[in-house]
């Protein structure tokens, strides 16, 4: 899949303000940007720069307080809860820093979990989940629970889970934050391979320059604003074979 005229993500003067007690915290102060389909974008910046907030808005986990956020022809800010649920279910997949796997479920069940909510039959769920676990290199660990897996393996399970609903966009929030650098490199390589092989749009939030180096485009954020709206990634490394 190549980039078409329709951007995967289009934000117009997007703002997000939190009310913390008496004070207002402006996490996003007017973000405007476009991400093409199939692009691998890294959002970098110091803590509190608003990069995670932006990612959560794109994922439909949170709502903007102002501006527009268009994804696949739908403006998320004004959409109903039902549309946001559909959005999370079908168009995006999350990869978290802390993996966020359900500890009681096996790797296979964790990967299959999102499909339960789409009403897909158990047999079909497990076939798909098994296939994805094989793709992320965990074909032999499907019956292990998260506690029996290493950090890197848990993150692979989480990536497989993010892919299970065939989303157009993967949202990864510090996916290497809890991993040692070698494992982090492996995870990044896996994400880039998915981006390249399957054409999945990838939004990565990180403050690890090594992780950001995998991206095709780096967006720097500070104090809720974008510092470099449309610069390509200067630090882009040659493709790493996984």
């Amino acid at each position: 899949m190549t980039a078409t005229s329709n951007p995967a993500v289009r934000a117009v003067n997007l703002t997000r303000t939190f009310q913390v007690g008496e004070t207002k915290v402006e996490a996003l102060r007017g973000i405007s940007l476009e991400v093409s389909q199939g692009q691998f974008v890294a959002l970098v910046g110091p803590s509190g720069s608003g990069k995670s907030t932006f990612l959560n808005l794109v994922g439909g986990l949170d709502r903007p307080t102002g501006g527009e956020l268009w994804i696949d022809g739908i403006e998320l800010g004004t959409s109903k809860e039902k549309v946001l649920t559909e959005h999370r279910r079908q168009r995006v997949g999350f990869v978290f820093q802390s993996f966020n796997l359900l500890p009681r479920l096996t790797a296979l069940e964790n990967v299959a979990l999102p499909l339960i909510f789409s009403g897909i039959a158990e047999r079909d769920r497990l076939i798909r989940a098994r296939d994805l676990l094989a793709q992320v290199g965990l074909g032999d660990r499907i019956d292990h629970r998260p506690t029996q897996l290493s950090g890197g393996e848990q993150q692979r399970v989480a990536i497989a889970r993010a892919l299970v609903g065939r989303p157009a966009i993967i949202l990864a929030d510090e996916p290497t934050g809890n991993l040692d650098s070698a494992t982090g490199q492996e995870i990044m390589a896996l994400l880039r391979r998915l981006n390249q092989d399957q054409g999945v749009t990838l939004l990565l939030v990180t403050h690890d320059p090594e992780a950001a180096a995998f991206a095709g485009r780096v967006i720097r954020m500070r104090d809720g604003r974008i510092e470099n709206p449309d610069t390509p990634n200067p630090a882009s490394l040659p493709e790493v074979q996984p």
Partner: protein
Amino acid sequence: MKLRDLLKTALSNLTRHKVRTALTTVGIVVGILTIVTMVSLGIGVQREMMNSFNAVGLETLQIYPVTERSSSLNPFGQAARTRLLTPTLIEQLQARDDVLSVTPDLSLPDGMRISLRLDGREVRADPWQAGLTAFPGLFENGPQLLAGVESPSEGGLLVTEAILELFGYKQEDLAGLIGQPVELVLYSPRGESQAFPFQIAGIYEKRWGNISLAVPDRLKLLEWWYNDPDYVANYGYDELLVHARSLNDAVQIVDWLSGQGFQVESLKTILDVINRAMIVLQTMLASVGTLALLVASIGIANTMIMAVYERTREIGIMKAVGAAPGQIRALFVVEASMIGLLGGIIGTILGWLLGVFLNWLILAILRWQEMDVRGTFFVVSWWLVVGALVFAALVGLLAGLYPAARAARLAPLDALRYE
């Protein structure tokens, strides 16, 4: 989300905290147990009564004479009767198309002194009032007939095994005593005595008394006792049992007799009163169980609210991967309903077992009291089982609504950050 997945997930969540689930269930178990036991008692008693009533037939009427309050001036303690059940009335009733049969009954007064004379010896006899009572064999299998006939014709006498034992007869002699001539001797307060010849017609194992005789014979005794050859004409029968052709005819006859000033009881009216009383009783007892369920529902709500706190992060994850608020709500509501249903199943089984035990206990006590009563007082009908289970699940469901709504309302981001 498929129903199967919903049930499976809810069940697996419940088995995560087995002890907590079990403890939460206890309240429901107690409530349902109480309701099932009480209602099954109601059903059992009602059914036993219906069976007894049906044996007699609802188209049966009992007619009693109208009696004034007994007067101390009356030497025999007999109350004066203002409306008599005379042979004329019997003829009038028998002449009606809608009457199938009329059976009169007479009681022997308590103060009447009677002896049974056999083999030249006399033993004090106590007549039982076989009666036409509306409740023949209520909860009873009826007294055990050991030999001879159940009810005597004129000149025949029923006796119990016990009185024959007083004459020194053993069980193996009983069959040979049928047809044996005996005499009943009456002693009046006037100091006179009179012997009446009888033949033993039947022998019973046990009764509330030790002899019984046919109505015409009772009349003979009464005529001598009151020294009144026209006893029935003057004083009338004590009770008439009228079998009407149908229930409708029975109502007509009741109207006719009531119009003449008689006191009439139809089984249907008695049954209606008893049924109403039973419903009141059942409702009261079931209310106790309902109260227990109310308390139990608070326990379920508490458990579910705790579960929502514990699983906040999990709820966040599920929402992030595409769970709709309605699906989260359904998950918790189903979980709460399952607690209710589980309690309902256990409570129904225990309630049924308690009924079986209480039934055994009551019959054992009655037997110990030498009352020959048989019957099933506790009946767990299929609708009681279904009703109890549905009710239990419904209590769980209602208790789960609020916690489930809280879970569904959680903002996904806050839930994900919850530690």
